[in-house]
Structure formats: C-alpha cells, structure tokens
C-alpha cells in the first residue's frame, strides 16, 4: 500500500492568526475566536480531502503545542514555564508533574473538531509518545523519568481506546525526543526496551492502525530495536536521518512513514527527486508487502499555511505517482 498523510499540527491560516492575535490583545471575544477556529479547521480539512490523503486530521489548530492538551487536562499536572521546542525558534509549556497522572476525561476528542471530519474518509489522531512526554516534563512527583513514561502510557491507553471507539482509524504517537540527540550521546539499549514496553502499555488492545513517528533526529540511531516496537508503522525524518545506515535494515512487517516533505524549510520539493529517493529506499529497506506513507518530516506548523498547503499537494502527487507505478508493475 502507498499512502500519504500529515504528521502533526498544521499552520494556522492567515485569517485565524489575525483573530488569535486580536484575541490575545483583548480586541475580539471568545465567540469570534471560536468561529475563526471553526472556519480555519474546515479550510485545512478541505485541503487534505482535496489532496486525497489516506487519513484526515482536523489540523490540530487549537493545540498550543503537542503536549498542551495533556498538560492541561490530565490530573496531577500543572502548566509550567516556556521551554524551547527542540532546536526550533518555537516554544512549549513544560508539563509539571505534581501528583499521580490520571486521565479523568476525553482529551483529544474534546479539542478535536470531529463534526467537521468527513464521514466517508478515515481519520487520524496524533498524541505525544510516552518517551517524549516524560522527557519534556518537569518531574516533581515520580521517582524517575521511566516511571513518568509508564504513568503517562497508562493514562493515554484509555484515550486511544476512546478515539478508536469514536471512529479514528489511525493513531500516531509523536516521539521527537527519542531521536533528538544533538550531543550524540549513546542511547542506552535498556532505555529502548522500556520505550517498547511503554508503547505496548499505551497501545494495549487498541483496534487501530498505529505509528511511532520520530523527527528532529536520526532514526537509524534507534535501529534495530525500533523494528520490534509494537506499532504498525515507523515514521522517519528524512532530513535528519543517515540514509546509508537506514539502508542496512529491512523493515519486514512494518510500514514506513517517510518524512520527505521538509516542514522546517519553505523550499518546495522536487517531485522527481522525492520519487527517486523513495524508489532507492524501498529497494533496500522494505519487502514487497511493506506499506509506505509519504509525509512531512514533522508538524507543518513551522511554515505559513500557504506553503504547507503546497507541500501537501506535492506529497499527494508523489504518492499518486508511486501508486500508479506500483500498479503498472503489478
């Protein structure tokens, strides 16, 4: 199977940015803000539908950062100070863990515009992965990061179950912290075993297709252990990954989500080049049964919406050409 989808928070369209800024300066009321979010959400959903993406998200325009809905709505957490979002000129608020992490309500469903998602197309939801959540939190309660990771994994298990019940067919767990390693420290093998177990906890009994999407770092650094992670697909940031090292492995039984669209660069990719890269990679890393998703390397919110939309269209055309070639080759 060849598919394509977005992998995170989409940029807010211009009009919505204007309204949010006005709201911040107390120039418009909450109702106006809400209306602007609704209009913009319809626009970004429509762009995905038009591009015929395999799974549709609501664009996550309301998400202030990837962690925030959980920081604000899981029990035992408080919203902390601003911190840099990896190596970007963007910031998130640290989750501060003060007590046992507990989920007492539906979190993603309550912030998602489910009513605008097309009924006849499959939906995708995106959540922070346990390792990233633990790594980016300020822990004032648990013994160590490992305990935080498992407590969060337990908490989102119900969340994922709830999303599956609502009708989401694809769950992506975003795990940038797992591969972001600028100081090139050796990743402990036992830590990767814990990550695998935490993923198992989070995904237990979930009747959805799943992906662990990594970005901002080199995916080849967590191989071969990642091949055993209990998810269907593995997401790779092609702008940070050592491709030669990647080619040393075969992804049998796993789908790959190739982050081929650079969400941190505004240059529109050359479609022929992307096709060549996919062909080269699939010849070595995947078996014939391996599913391939063409996608942005990370959240497209680092771009203005117009550029993001152009990239979504490129992604769609690349996936279509790949599909056509696959059919042509039987």
């Amino acid at each position, binding site marked *: 199977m060849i598919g394509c989808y977005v992998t995170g928070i989409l*940029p*807010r369209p*211009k009009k919505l*940015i204007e309204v*949010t*800024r006005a*709201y*911040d300066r107390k120039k418009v009321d909450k109702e106006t803000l809400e209306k602007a979010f609704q209009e913009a959400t319809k626009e970004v959903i429509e762009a995905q539908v038009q591009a015929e993406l395999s799974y549709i998200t609501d664009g996550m325009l309301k998400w*202030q*950062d990837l962690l925030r809905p959980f920081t604000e709505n899981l029990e035992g957490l408080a919203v902390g100070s*601003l911190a*840099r979002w990896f*190596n*970007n*000129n*963007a*910031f*998130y*608020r640290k989750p501060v863990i003060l007590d046992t992490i507990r989920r007492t309500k539906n979190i993603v469903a309550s912030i998602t515009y489910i009513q605008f998602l097309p009924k006849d197309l499959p939906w995708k939801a995106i959540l922070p992965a346990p390792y990233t959540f633990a790594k980016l939190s300020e822990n004032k309660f648990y013994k160590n990061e490992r305990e935080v990771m498992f407590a969060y994994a337990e908490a989102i298990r119900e969340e994922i179950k709830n999303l599956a019940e609502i009708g989401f067919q694809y769950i992506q767990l975003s795990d940038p912290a797992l591969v972001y390693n*600028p*100081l*090139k420290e050796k990743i402990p093998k036992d830590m990767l075993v814990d990550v695998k177990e935490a993923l198992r906890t989070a995904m237990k009994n979930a009747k959805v297709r799943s992906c662990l999407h990594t970005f901002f770092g080199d995916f080849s650094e967590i191989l071969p252990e990642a091949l055993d992670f209990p998810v269907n697909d593995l997401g790779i940031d*092609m*702008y*940070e*990954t*050592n*491709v030669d090292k990647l080619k040393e492995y075969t992804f049998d039984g796993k789908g790959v989500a190739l982050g081929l669209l*650079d969400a941190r*660069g*505004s*240059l529109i990719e*050359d479609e022929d*080049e992307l096709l060549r890269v996919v062909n080269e990679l699939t010849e070595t890393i995947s078996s014939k049964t391996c599913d391939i998703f063409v996608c942005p390397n990370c959240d497209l*919110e*680092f*771009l*203005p*919406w*117009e*550029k993001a939309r152009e990239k979504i269209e490129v992604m769609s055309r690349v996936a279509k050409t790949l599909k056509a070639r696959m059919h042509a080759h039987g």
Partner: protein
Amino acid sequence: MDKIFPTQEIGSLAKPAWRVKAYRGEPLSQEEISEAIEWGRKLGVEDTEALAKILKKREKTVEDRKAVLQWSALYAIRLFETAGLDIIFDGEQWRSEMYEHVIRNTEGFEFLGYVKSFDYRYFNKAACISKPKYVKPFYLDEFLFTKENTRKIIKVPFTGPYTLVDWTFNEYYEKKAASQARDFKQRKASARREFLFDLVKEVVRPEIAKLIEAGATWIQIDEPAATTNPSNEEMQLFVEAFNETVRGFNCTFSLHNCYSNYEVLAKYASQLRNCSQLALEFANRDSTQLGTDNKVRVGYRELKIFEEQGYHGNYGLGVIDVHTDFIEPPELVRDRILYAAKIVGDPGRIFVSTDCGLRTRKWEVSFAKLKNMVLGAELARMTLQ
C-alpha cells in the same frame, strides 16, 4: 573604564504609544500627547512643544514620521542618561524589531508570513530567495543620531548573522545545493553554511565597516539563537561566524545571548575571538532574596561553568529581570554583583546590565529598574572599596 561595575543597557526599550501611532500616521489621544510631554519634562528633553505640534497633526508627512523616530530615540537616550547608565544606545527606537529591521533593509529576502512562536504569538518569517545583497546602511543613521545626542559611551546592538540565518527559510541556498549533496541532511547543512558566510561577507561586515568608519567603537553582536542547535557542528559554525564577523576590525565587540543553554555556550565561549564581553541573562534564573551565598544566588551558578571552561573575558552581568514588573531593590542588585565578583575573582571584569532589552516593560518600570541598577552598582562599589 575608570570605575568598576560600569552600567549598561542591552538594547531595546518599549516604543511609547505616541511613537507607534504617530509613526503609523494614526491619530493620537490627548492623553497620549500629554504622556509624551510629561516624559519629556521628566527627562529634561528640550522643546517638546515641537514634538507636540507633530503629534497633534492630523496628516503626517514623511518628514514628520522620521522626526517622530528621532524624538523617541532622543527620549530613550535621555531616559538611559537620566537613570545614570554609563554605556547607552537609543533603545532601538528606529527598528521595527531586531530581525525584521535587518531583513527588510537587505536584498535577497521575501517575507512569507507569520509562523507560530508559542500560543498566540507569531513571528514574521522571511525566506532567502537570492544571494543577500547590501543595499543601504541599516544601523548607521541611528548610530549617528545617538552620537550626536550623547556624550556617554555608545554600544551599538547588532543582530548577529547566526540568528538571522537561523530565523530565516533558506530557499536560495538549498536549491543551489540540490545537485551537490548526496542526502537531504548534508544538503541542508552545506546550504546553511553557505548562507551564513555569504550573509557575513555581503551584508554584516559592510555594515560594521560603515559604523566603524562613522566612529562606532563598540558593537554588541546579538545572537539569541546561538545555542538553539547545541550540536558540536552547529556551535562550531556559530563560533566561526562570530569570528569571521569581527575579523580584522579595529573596534570593541561583545556578544549578547539570553534565555539559552549556558552550559553549551560556556564550552565554546573561549573560542570567540575579539569578544571583550559576554552579556548574559542571569536575573531571570535567580531568587529575589538578599544575600551573596550559593543557596540564594542560584541564578548565577552558571558563571562558574564559564570560568571553569576557560573564558577570561568580561561579563555583562544581567541583574535586572526584563520579564517582570518587580523593581529590583538596589541591595539585591548589589548582592548579585558581589556574588558574581566573588566567582569571577576580578571585579574589573563585571559590567552591570539588564538581562536583555527592556522592550516588554512600560517606561515607568524600565526607568525605575534602571535607576535601581545604577544605585545597586554604586552600593557594590562602596562595599568593595
């Protein structure tokens, strides 16, 4: 300097409502005009009637708008002087913002629109679409104006090339590198490097040369993005860019960096050539209790790392938190300075500063903070003497 603990500001000061509205050509309320006059009186600015006349005009000419910039720069200069600072500039009143100001005045860039910084805050991000070209001076006029209007030591804040590159999409060089590099990662890295050093050569150094020719003796390179990418490759790139920026100029250079990872910066600080001072933010990390012991002065711990890593230059010691309205008492400023002096071992290496520019604070708050900073420096001097 003829005294220890000279005081300095870092750069920006808030733009008063009268400056913003009048520059945009919007009508001002009587209250806003009165505020301008009142501040003029407080700061001893002469002939504020001329300013009032411009502010009251319904239609403002290009000359009026330029005059408004000059008036607000003059006010900022007087504010710093009246607060008692030793080293000053004009509060960056001529600049729209540290990034936009340079990019808008340089050829080769196109603004693509706003991208999210956090929550409902955004910044206008440009793409480099052709080789950057220096077309006109962008800091010279404000420097000349400041020089004309003060006898204090002038330090020119200058947005550094590493930050400009880090905050800009790199379309031109990534496209150019497309056929040269094997994979995307290598391509982005080589394109970034070429962009950075072209910017230094084509834009940054020509402007520095103009400033020096016009009499600038101290330029502060502002690099808030310095440790955004803490990998060794990126930090080496940052160091190389700084060294290339200042190479061969007969001028004092310093570096300002704030809200960053100082453990990372400390490792590379000693490699910065011709960098007489590191102006760093510490007050934001510190407690507000009085005292000079380790338990109280938690915000200044990282000074030790710079010392241990072999940095021997001066410090612009941030003793004023620019993100709160809390007015630091002189005694707190004194204790922060004395604690730092103890760590550094040589009080002559400490210049007393705000953490960063004061652009997010109201003038009343900034003025009160700066006055106390000056008083605190004096208390510290008295203690050591």
